[in-house]
């Protein structure tokens, strides 16, 4: 794409900062060409350089706190050789023509953008260099770039990018784009502060919930709990609340629209609603009983089946068996669900926090009966997501309400709504059996069962590949309680179970847990069984690295006990050692050591904080996280009964990245999975009690 546009028009459209930004460039730019001499240089949808030297980099991916609004533009700036302190970063809206994969999920932003973003910057730099060479009438080979300038080496002449913008915008896009030698990186691999940091600390950062528009109403919605539906509603009291403008019944829900959030809430509280059963509303004991039954039998279609685990059990001197239990977990991002919608007869504008704007548009189009190209989706910075905002229920709901109300509307969920809102990390049970013969591990059999999960396992992950007899079965349990991806789906619990069970086996064999893992990894390397998702060598390296960092095997301070955990997810290898103590039945995690192989690190500050956050997130949920149900209703409705980790419980953390010249891998999720096992294994070292049921809660009831 090649676009010419004058500065006035550019500013006009860019300040809208919504969807369709790039498309509107075209129309304006043609007129602009005729009018003015200077043009903004915009060789692609990733950057724009205006004649006054302003460099704007677009951030197309949803920013949920994972740092892509900083790290992806860094890739462009690196190859552009821009002066980072001079660039502005703007959030783009949904634009499927110009961008790929505008999704915050699967730890995939950097992995999928690594090449294209750098090429966008490199192409622009080549054109700027060419423009300068032409101006000076010198060979391009004599020119190079540095921090926003093109420099003619023999004469020392310089021109800044702004002065070259107009000329560069007249050039053809280069046919071949040459990327930098990584040794020449100046930005990639440094510690760069989040581009929104100053706005955040001064309260100026607008999140979705801060959206304010002319004529907008605020809505709160009464929704049924799982397994119930609307029978009758009396809204007479609600309509008397000052500020309440409309009450709308739709899809088994009741929306109250008002001139303020407080009025909407009071209005909703004043509704008299009768709900009735729609099927059988479930309670925690119901699904727990069902899951416990499922794991007693195998499936007809194992997810993986190497050798013969049954035969191995028959031959075994001993069979170890352990059952692990995972509760449902809500995502509970600190900014509750909300979305803005302004739906007209022939078009719609949607704006707010979404990890998947494309899905939002597709589903809204279907529900509204509008073509997709009549719907714009703008993205706000999100107050966390953890997977919850991969769903489109709350954004589509806002669109429905706006359409029915014929008004722009911001739908706001209370914390209580958010806790009941579904798409949880599924509850599950994992039953492991290990066969041991001649003090060797000969077989490994997992039967998993989880709520609404066709596959609750990660069957090609370690220790798959290391054992001759290895089988994984996974049962799906259907329930009205909705589930969805939750930071590091499946990994977030399976790592805890696998890595705890490996420790149990090591204990049985009389082996050091770390040495035992290394032995298995060597087996996977030398005589691999089947295909596996991981590279044994890279796995071995993080295990060894963290053992060294965490003084594994050495006598620590008195009263401090160590535990180990490692896991591979989203292309990244993570190993952790936790130092803990237990006093009066209370676990205190003092320090976590963490070795990471995620390949190249784009932004050290961002990468480190993702790992730290993942560890604290995983630790908090392992210690406290659980929601339970009574007749379809969540019993933990707010943070007074649903406990999240707080500052006094947060350990000190030391992170090291290794193997940083390989291609970059995922980072938002992989830090989380290993911590549960590292801490549980340390608890065993401290107390002799094996944690198999999460959350840990108080240690007096850890037996399942």
């Amino acid at each position, binding site marked *: 794409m090649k676009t010419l546009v004058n500065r006035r028009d550019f500013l006009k459209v860019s300040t809208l900062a919504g969807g369709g930004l790039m498309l509107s460039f075209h129309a304006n730019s043609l007129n602009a060409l005729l009018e003015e001499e200077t043009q903004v240089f915009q060789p692609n949808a990733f950057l724009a350089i205006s004649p006054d030297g302003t460099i704007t980099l677009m951030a197309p991916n949803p920013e*949920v*706190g*994972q*740092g892509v609004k900083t790290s992806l533009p860094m890739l462009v700036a690196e190859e552009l050789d821009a002066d980072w302190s001079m660039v502005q970063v703007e959030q783009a809206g949904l634009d499927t023509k110009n961008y790929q994969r505008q999704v915050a999920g699967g730890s995939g932003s950097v992995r999928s953008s690594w090449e294209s973003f750098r090429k966008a910057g490199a192409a622009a730099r080549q054109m700027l260099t060419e423009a300068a060479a032409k101006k000076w009438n010198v060979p391009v080979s004599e020119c190079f770039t540095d921090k926003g300038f093109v420099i003619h080496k023999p004469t020392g002449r310089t021109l800044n990018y702004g002065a070259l913008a107009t000329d560069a915008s007249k050039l053809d896009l280069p046919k071949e784009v040459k990327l930098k030698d990584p040794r020449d990186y100046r930005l990639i691999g440094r*510690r760069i*502060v*989040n581009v*929104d*940091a*100053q706005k*955040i*600390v*001064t*309260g*100026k*950062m*607008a*999140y979705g*919930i*801060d959206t*304010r528009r002319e004529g907008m109403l*605020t809505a709160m919605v009464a929704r049924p709990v799982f397994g119930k539906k609307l029978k009758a509603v009396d809204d007479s009291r609600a309509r008397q609340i*000052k500020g309440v403008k409309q009450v709308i019944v739709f899809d088994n829900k009741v929306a109250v629209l008002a001139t*303020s*959030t*407080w*009025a909407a809430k*009071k209005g909703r509280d004043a509704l008299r609603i009768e709900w009735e059963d729609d099927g059988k509303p479930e309670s925690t004991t119901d699904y727990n009983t069902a899951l416990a039954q499922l794991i007693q039998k195998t499936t007809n279609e194992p997810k993986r089946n190497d050798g013969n685990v049954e035969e191995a059990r028959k031959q075994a001197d001993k069979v170890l068996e352990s059952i692990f239990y995972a509760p449902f977990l809500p995502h*509970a*991002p*600190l*900014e*509750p669900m909300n979305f803005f919608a302004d739906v007209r007869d022939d078009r719609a504008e949607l704006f707010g926090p979404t990890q998947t704007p494309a899905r939002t548009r597709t589903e809204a189009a279907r529900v509204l009966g509008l073509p997709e190209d009549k719907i714009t989706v703008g993205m706000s*910075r999100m*107050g*966390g*997501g*953890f997977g919850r905002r991969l769903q489109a229920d709350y954004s589509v709901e806002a669109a429905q309400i706006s359409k029915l109300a014929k008004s722009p509307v911001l739908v706001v969920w209370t*914390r209580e709504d958010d806790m009941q809102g579904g798409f949880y990390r599924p509850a599950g049970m994992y039953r492991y059996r290990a066969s041991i013969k001649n003090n060797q591990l000969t077989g490994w059999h997992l039967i998993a069962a989880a709520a609404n999960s066709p596959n609750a396992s990660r069957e090609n992950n370690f220790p798959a590949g290391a054992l001759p007899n290895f089988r994984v079965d996974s049962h799906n349990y259907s329930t009205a309680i909705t589930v969805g991806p939750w930071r590091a789906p499946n990994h977030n619990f399976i790592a805890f179970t696998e890595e705890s069970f490996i420790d149990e086996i090591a204990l049985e064999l009389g082996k050091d847990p770390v040495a035992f893992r290394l032995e298995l990894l060597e087996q996977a390397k030398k005589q691999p069984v089947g295909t596996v998702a991981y590279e044994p060598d890279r796995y071995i390296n993080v295990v060894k690295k963290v053992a060294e960092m965490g003084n594994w095997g050495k006598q620590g301070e008195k009263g401090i006990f160590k535990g180990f955990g490692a896991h591979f997810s989203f292309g990244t290898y993570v190993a952790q050692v936790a130092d803990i103590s237990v006093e009066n039945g209370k676990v205190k995690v003092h320090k976590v050591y963490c070795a990471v192989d995620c390949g190249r690190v784009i932004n050290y*500050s*961002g990468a480190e*904080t*993702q790992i*730290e*956050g*993942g560890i*604290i*997130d995983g630790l*908090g949920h392992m210690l406290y996280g659980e929601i339970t149900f009574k007749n379809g209703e969540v019993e933990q409705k*707010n*943070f*007074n009964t649903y406990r*999240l*980790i*707080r*500052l*006094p419980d*947060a350990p*000190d*953390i030391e992170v090291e990245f290794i193997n940083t010249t390989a291609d970059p891998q995922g980072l938002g999720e992989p830090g989380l999975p290993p911590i549960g096992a590292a801490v549980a294994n340390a608890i065993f070292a401290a107390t002799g009690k094996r944690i198999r049921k999460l959350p840990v809660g108080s240690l007096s009831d850890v037996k399942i």
Partner: protein
Amino acid sequence: MATFTLSINNRNYTVDVEPDTPLLWVLRDELNLTGTKYGCGVAQCGACTVHLNGSPVRSCTLPVSAIKGKITTIEGLSENGDHPVQQAWVELDVAQCGYCQAGQIMTAAALLARKPKPTDADIDAAMAGNICRCGTYKRIRKAIHLAVAKGGAK
């Protein structure tokens, strides 16, 4: 509805709202001061923390009719966004999603005003009411120590 005059960030505002309206929603909906955030509405998360006469309070459970004194919000913590706590937060790149941070900063600033050289135990006690779902606690602790080094209370 009733009329209330509030002193916020050294300016007087008059609002016409129901007396039971929490200060949080007056700030956010009536005065467009959206830097103060909603997280729980039940004084559990600290996202809505503002200063009332210099002390940190949860604005989500403070009815507008009960307010006596001067309110400071994140927007008024410093004129140029350069309170030592704000500076330290930027320098150490504390925020992930950032949603909790206005509340964290207001609580930390109030702590330093009261106790210019807090110990780790003081920090634990003061900050325990502020949830960060993204888990930035390690950096928060570090940033408070850095803010102390920068002159702390201002």
